[in-house]
């Protein structure tokens, strides 16, 4: 991975890549090395999101990385079950990452759980920042979640 150690001047648009993301049942899954922007239609869910899978975790996983989720509300409104939701990381190949401490968790601004707008097809945008990892040992366990905005019109 490129490491730009000197100042860089950027004179045009910054483009991010949409990654692979799915939601089925009550599970939301993102491929964390496929991009930093993820777009999901919650219509495919059968209930509120109780499992948050992040796949293709690797030893080179960069810490403090920001992910942006664009979530389109379904006709039956869905929410995250933040009170019990934990980040679940999986290595490429599907085995669960066990290097992280058992107390991975999501944290929210002011401790308030973000709430998705309930209107059908409402656009909700959320930002998630991963804990800072250095040598693949965790220095922090909190995944920061902030709502960018709900119900864009």
């Amino acid at each position, binding site marked *: 991975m490129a490491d730009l150690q000197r100042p860089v001047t*950027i*004179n045009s648009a*910054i*483009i991010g890549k949409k990654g692979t993301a799915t939601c089925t049942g009550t599970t939301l899954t993102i491929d964390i090395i496929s991009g930093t922007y993820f777009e999901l239609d919650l219509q495919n869910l059968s209930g509120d999101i109780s499992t948050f899978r992040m796949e293709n975790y690797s030893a080179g996983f960069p810490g403090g990385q920001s992910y942006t989720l664009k979530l389109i509300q379904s006709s039956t409104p869905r929410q995250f079950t933040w009170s019990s939701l934990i980040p679940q990381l999986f290595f490429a190949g599907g085995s669960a990452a066990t290097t992280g401490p058992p107390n991975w968790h999501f944290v929210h601004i002011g401790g308030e759980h973000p709430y998705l707008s309930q209107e059908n097809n409402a656009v909700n945008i959320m930002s998630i920042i991963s804990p800072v990892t250095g040598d693949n040992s965790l220095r922090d366990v909190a995944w920061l979640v902030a709502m960018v905005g709900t119900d864009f019109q």
Partner: protein
Amino acid sequence: MASLNGITWSGKPKFQIRNPSYNSTNIYIDLAVGHVWRIDCANISGAIGNFTVQNVPSGTGIVSSFLLGLIQGPNPSTNYLNWLAMTNVKWAGGIRGVQPWQKHLINSVQMDSGEIIMYSNGHYLAAPVSETVGGPNSILPIRFTTTGTLPTGLSLNTNYWSYFSSNMYFFPSSTEVTSGEGSGAGTPISYTNAGTGTHYWHMYHHEKHQNIQTATDNAVDYLSFTTWDNGTTWYGTVVGRDIK
């Protein structure tokens, strides 16, 4: 164009600030030459109602963004960017200082003089919030959600207002409340039942319905714009207002 599949910035990224071109009806942002933009509204004339972003990167599976700084001019009521008219820009619900996604529990729904009264401890509806666009004294709308069925007379995905409240309860109105009496005093909703399940209310308002920009001369506001569809729709968010 460089494509970096993962990047660590140990150094400091710098952005040249560009000035958009504009005329009386359009503002032009050219993404071929800049990521950070700034406009001094002292130099614009009238209400600019078109937001044109040029040279938007196009391709499958990409997201583009830019920043726009706004410096307020001396005549914000006549010379301004008319976000209401810019239909290609979508804004989040909610207002500054109020988390729109935060749902508030309605502890109980009861009848008072034949009308619905809702008890919701510690709600924000006691103090009307004024807005520049939409009526100087109008109260922001709210909407209801429920785990069951709303009380008869209330519907999902519908705006309501509060026409009378304390910090413990409020009376919902089906019409906007613009004054304490007369035609703008609101329309009470007759009580039939309390519905079923647990009911919630949340703020329902959009950034573009109020002044996105701080109205003070020389105030600095920064906005962020992101497109997920190669420039057809831009999602606007306020990075910060009245930065000083």
